[in-house]
């Protein structure tokens, strides 16, 4: 039962982060809140595994964290490429 309460709180936090991701005036706000959403969902998956008594789902949440990191860095690479381009031209 406690795990379902935890899942509810995590869901509320994901919704709050999503508000910032939608509203965010700058793109950096969006990137930041999406990486936070990724972290919360990764933790939520492992809690979900415990709640439904199948704790093997930890593997996915591990991979999730790594891929979330990779995606965030990939999106930020856009600005690096832009910087390089403007220097060359």
């Amino acid at each position, binding site marked *: 039962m406690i795990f379902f309460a935890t899942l509810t709180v995590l869901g509320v936090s994901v919704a*709050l982060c999503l508000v910032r991701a939608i509203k965010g005036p700058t793109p950096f706000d969006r990137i930041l809140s999406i990486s936070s959403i990724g972290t919360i969902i990764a933790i939520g998956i492992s809690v979900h595994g415990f709640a439904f008594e199948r704790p093997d789902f930890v593997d996915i949440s591990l991979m999730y964290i790594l891929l979330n990191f990779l995606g965030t860095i990939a999106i930020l690479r856009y600005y690096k490429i832009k910087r390089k381009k403007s220097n060359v031209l």
Partner: protein
Amino acid sequence: MSYNYIELITLILLAIGCFFILSGSLGLIKLPDVFSRIHAAGLIDTLGSGFIVLALIIYSGFSLLSLKLLLIPIFLIFTSPVTGHAIALFAHESGYKPKGKNKK
């Protein structure tokens, strides 16, 4: 009897972790600019996830599963500062200035 102790500790740790995650995501909404919001995201990444994973480790007991769970905060500790620093750096380079007074 001992089972009840474990459940109680799990409950307390989960509550602390939930509190930190909730205040982190509240901070994402409340704080004024990008640079301040990075602090709130860091709060979610370090303390919130740390306490929840600690609760899960105590609940599951010592096994291979708890080692896997332990890997989650280790990865987060390695990846979280890199993301935060990269976002701050590129936001600063794109010309966004942090609000508030600047002291040199």
